């Protein structure tokens, strides 16, 4: 049963559209993005994404937190107070987006009609839906991909990377004094 997956995907895309089109206020845009990412993560989980879906949601939440945190540092970010684009610019950009959308539709339609997607899903479907990506769900397998025989160390290496990034962020905090 995939009905709720389709529903979650549609809701996520709608929320993303709201975040882009009605995103004059940063907090509202971030809220709409959070709703979109949650819905997309839910759809990924339902489709068998497993740990990858959780990572997707976690990284998306970090991105939104960074955006909101740094956004608070900006003056007047709640209302950007910018006038709209001129009609010529808007017209040209809408035309470009329309062409791009048409290209995406043609690409997807071609893949669908040729049966490329159907063949791929049929091949992947030989595994039970719940066990798809069984190896990809295993952090040790992903660790083995990146650091070979030391794949068992994936978790400590990940923690060390996170600690290094945090330390770098703390050090960068004072870099503004050099600019003066």
């Amino acid at each position, binding site marked *: 049963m995939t009905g709720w997956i*389709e529903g979650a995907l549609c809701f996520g895309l709608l929320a993303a559209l709201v*975040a*882009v089109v009605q995103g004059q206020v940063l907090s509202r845009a971030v809220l709409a993005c959070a709703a979109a990412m949650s819905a997309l993560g839910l*759809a990924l989980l339902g489709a068998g994404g497993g740990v990858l879906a959780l*990572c997707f949601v976690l*990284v998306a939440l970090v991105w939104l937190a960074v955006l909101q945190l740094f956004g608070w540092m900006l003056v007047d970010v709640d209302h950007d107070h*910018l006038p709209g684009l001129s009609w010529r610019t808007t017209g040209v950009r809408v035309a470009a*987006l329309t062409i791009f959308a048409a290209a995406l539709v043609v690409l997807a339609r071609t893949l669908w009609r040729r049966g490329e*997607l159907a063949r791929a899903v049929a091949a*992947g479907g030989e595994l039970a839906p719940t066990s798809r990506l069984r190896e990809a769900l295993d952090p040790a397998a992903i660790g083995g991909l990146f650091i070979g025989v030391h794949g068992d160390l994936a978790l400590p290496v990940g923690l060390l990377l996170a600690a290094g990034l945090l330390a770098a962020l703390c050090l960068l905090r004072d870099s503004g004094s050099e600019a003066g």
Partner: protein
Amino acid sequence: MTRGIDAVEWLFFGGMALLWIALLGLVLRRSLVGMLVGLGLAWASVSLLAIAFALFEAEPVLAVRAGGLALVAAIVGCLQVAVGIALVVARVGRRGSIDAEEARLLEG
């Protein structure tokens, strides 16, 4: 006889639609922060497509590679948005504006 669309195929089409929405944000917004929102949605679409391709794969090794690609794309996308927002903050401090139309000058 038509076949119903599999959940993974829905993910594929959803990823393509999200890419278009992200480009909409990048192209039609004047605010630099608004453009960064679009940029974030763009990497989300790349991650979504990579995970969908991982789900397509029957070979476990290829699935792990596609999963690793999805993770790397997600982390790099998050970091680039962080760097981008830091640039925007620096620009606002200097110029006092987040208008992308005025950000034409490359300073050394």
